[in-house]
C-alpha cells in the first residue's frame, strides 16, 4: 500500500475549517435574530440562558445567592437545536421517499464543499513540517470550482420541493431553480472580470494580487490593492453581492420560501432534523459566501494597509481578520433582509437578466480592453481606452434601453374582479 499520510493531512485541513463553520451556525442564528430585533425595534431572544439564583434557598451556595447572570439569549440557539432534534419527525405518506431523504443532505453539501478553496491564513505561517494547513486544496481552478459547487446548491432545494409532493413546495423548488440559473450568469461574469484582473483562477494568487500597492501606485503602497477599491472591482463586488444574496435564497430574493405565498416553500413538508439541515445549510452557505466575498474582493485574510512590521504580525491574526470580514458581510445580509421588501417575480428576473448581466458583461469587456491596451501601449493609453470603451458601451446601452422603452408595450397590469357565483357572475 502507498503512504497514506497525505490523506491524513487532507483530513486535518478539512476538519480545521469545516468544524468551526458548523459550530458557528448557532451563533450566526442568534446574531441574526438579535440584530433583526434591534433593527425592527423589538427585543429579540434575550432570555434563554439567564440564570437568577434564589436569594433564600439553602440549596444555592452562599456566594451565588441572589446573583444574576445574563447570557444575552445566547443559549436560545442551543435550545432551538435541542428542540429540533427531539421533535417528532413527520414524513408525509405521499412523499418520494428516497429523494425526500437525500434532499436535506444535498442542501448541506455545497456550503461545506465550498470551503475547500478558501485560505484562512498564509500557508508559510500555518503549516506543520512543511504541510500547509490551509486551504484544503490550493487548486489552480479555484474560482471555477466555486462556480461549479455553488451551482449544485439548487439540487437540495429543487429535490426537496419535488419529493414533498406538495404544490407549494414544488413551486418553491421551481422558483429556486429559475432564480439560480438567472443569477449564476451574472455572478460568473462578475468573477470573470476579477480573474482577468488577477490573471489567475487561484484563490491564493488573488490574495497575493490584492497585497500590491493601491492602483499600482507605489506612493500609495501602504494601502493594499483590494479589488473592492478598484473601479471595476467595485462594480463586480456589487454584482457579486446581489447574486450572492440571490444564490442563498435570502430576502429580498427569498421567493422560494415566500411565507405569504408558499407557506414555507420547499421545506414545508420537512420537520425535525431534516428541516434543521436545510436551515443549517442556508446559514452555512451565507457565511461561506461571505468568506468567498472577503477573499475575492476584500483581500482575504490580510489587513487593508501594510507596513513592514505589521505584515508578519497580521500573518498570525489571519483567521481572525478573515472571520471579522466574513461576519461583516454576513451582517450585511441581515441588514439587507431587514431593509428591503421582497421582490416581485418579474422584478427579480428583470434585475438579473436586464441589469446585472449587461452590467457584468460591460465590466468584463472594460477590464479586457484595459489589460490589452496596457500591455500593448502602456499605462496612459490603457486608462484612456477604458474611459472610451466604458463611454461607448454605456451610450449603446442607454440608447437600446431608451428604444426598448418607447417601443415596448406599456406594463401590463391585472385587475382583480371579485365574482359572486350566487349572483351568476362569470
Amino acid at each position, binding site marked *: 500500500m502507498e503512504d497514506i499520510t497525505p490523506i491524513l493531512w487532507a483530513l486535518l485541513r478539512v476538519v480545521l475549517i469545516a468544524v468551526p463553520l458548523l459550530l458557528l451556525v448557532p451563533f450566526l442564528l442568534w446574531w441574526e435574530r438579535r440584530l433583526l430585533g434591534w433593527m425592527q425595534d423589538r427585543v429579540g431572544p434575550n432570555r434563554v440562558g439567564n440564570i437568577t439564583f434564589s436569594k433564600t434557598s439553602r440549596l444555592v451556595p452562599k456566594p451565588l445567592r441572589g446573583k444574576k447572570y445574563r447570557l444575552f439569549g445566547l443559549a436560545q440557539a442551543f435550545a432551538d437545536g435541542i428542540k429540533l432534534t427531539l421533535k417528532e419527525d413527520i414524513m408525509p405518506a405521499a412523499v418520494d421517499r428516497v429523494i425526500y431523504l437525500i434532499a436535506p443532505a444535498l442542501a448541506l453539501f455545497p456550503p461545506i464543499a465550498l470551503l475547500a478553496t478558501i485560505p484562512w491564513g498564509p500557508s508559510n505561517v500555518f503549516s506543520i513540517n512543511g504541510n500547509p494547513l490551509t486551504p484544503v486544496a490550493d487548486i*489552480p481552478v479555484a474560482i471555477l470550482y466555486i462556480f*461549479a459547487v455553488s451551482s449544485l446548491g439548487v439540487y437540495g432545494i429543487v429535490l426537496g420541493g419535488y419529493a414533498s409532493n406538495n404544490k407549494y413546495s414544488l413551486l418553491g423548488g421551481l422558483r429556486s431553480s429559475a432564480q439560480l440559473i438567472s443569477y449564476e450568469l451574472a455572478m460568473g461574469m462578475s468573477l470573470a472580470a476579477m480573474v482577468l484582473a488577477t490573471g489567475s483562477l487561484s484563490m491564493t494568487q488573488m490574495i497575493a494580487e490584492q497585497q500590491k500597492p493601491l492602483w499600482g501606485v507605489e506612493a500609495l503602497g501602504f494601502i493594499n490593492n483590494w479589488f473592492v477599491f478598484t473601479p471595476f472591482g467595485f462594480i463586480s463586488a456589487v454584482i457579486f453581492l446581489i447574486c450572492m444574496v440571490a444564490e442563498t435564497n435570502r430576502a429580498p430574493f427569498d421567493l422560494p420560501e415566500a411565507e405569504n405565498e408558499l407557506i414555507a416553500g420547499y421545506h414545508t413538508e420537512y420537520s425535525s432534523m431534516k428541516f434543521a439541515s436545510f436551515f443549517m445549510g442556508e446559514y452555512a452557505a451565507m457565511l461561506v459566501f461571505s468568506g468567498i466575498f472577503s477573499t475575492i474582493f476584500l483581500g482575504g485574510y490580510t489587513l487593508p494597509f501594510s507596513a513592514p512590521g505589521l505584515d508578519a504580525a497580521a500573518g498570525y491574526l489571519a483567521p481572525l481578520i478573515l472571520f471579522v470580514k466574513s461576519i461583516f458581510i454576513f451582517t450585511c445580509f441581515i441588514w439587507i433582509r431587514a431593509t428591503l421588501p421582497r421582490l416581485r417575480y418579474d422584478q427579480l428576473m428583470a434585475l438579473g437578466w436586464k441589469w446585472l448581466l449587461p452590467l457584468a458583461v460591460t465590466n468584463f469587456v472594460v477590464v479586457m480592453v484595459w489589460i490589452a491596451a496596457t500591455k500593448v501601449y502602456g499605462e496612459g493609453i490603457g486608462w484612456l481606452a477604458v474611459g472610451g470603451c466604458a463611454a461607448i458601451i454605456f451610450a449603446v446601452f442607454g440608447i437600446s434601453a431608451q428604444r426598448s422603452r418607447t417601443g415596448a408595450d406599456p406594463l401590463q397590469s391585472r385587475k382583480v374582479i371579485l365574482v359572486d357565483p350566487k349572483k351568476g357572475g362569470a
Partner: protein
Amino acid sequence: MGGFSLGQPMPVTVDTVLFGLLALVAAISAVGVVAFGRTPVRSALSLVVNFLTLAIIYFTLGSEMLGIIQIVVYTGAIMVLFLFVIMLLNLGAQPPLAKAKDVKMLLAILVAAGLFAAVFAAVVLPMASADIPAIGKEMKGFGKPDAIGYSLLTEYVWPFEMASVLLLVGIVGSILLVKRRKQ
C-alpha cells in the same frame, strides 16, 4: 506505473481502488438512467450522479479543469434545466414501448452488442498497450487552465471558433423562436 495489459492483474494502489469505486458508481448510475424509466426525475438524478462521478474521475487523473467544466456545464446547468422541465411538465410514467416479445428486441440486442464491440475495439484495446502516464507527461501543465487555453487558441483555433459560431447561432435561433410569437 507503466502500461497495463488486460491479462495481468493491476497493482492494488489507492488510485486503483478509488478508480474502481468511482467507476462502479458511474456504471450503476448509468444503468439507473435507463432502469428508472418510470420515474423521470430519478432517471435525471442518476444522470447527475453519473456526471459527478465522471468529474471526480477527471480530478483523480489530474485534469481539474475538465472535471470542473463537467460539473459547471452538465451537473450545474444542463441537468438543472432537465429537472426544471421534468417538474414543470410533471412528466409521469411513459407507457412501455414493448409489451410482448418482438423481433425488434432481438434486433436491438444485436445492434447494442455490435456497438459495444466497436467501442471496445476502438477504445479499450489500444489503451491496453498504451503507456498512459507517459501521455500525461508529454504535455507541459497537462490539464491546467492555461495549457488548455493556449492549445485552444493556437492548435485548435478553427474548431474552437466554429464551435463558438455554432453556439451563437443557437442563441440567436432560440431568441428568434421565442420572439416570433409576438408578430
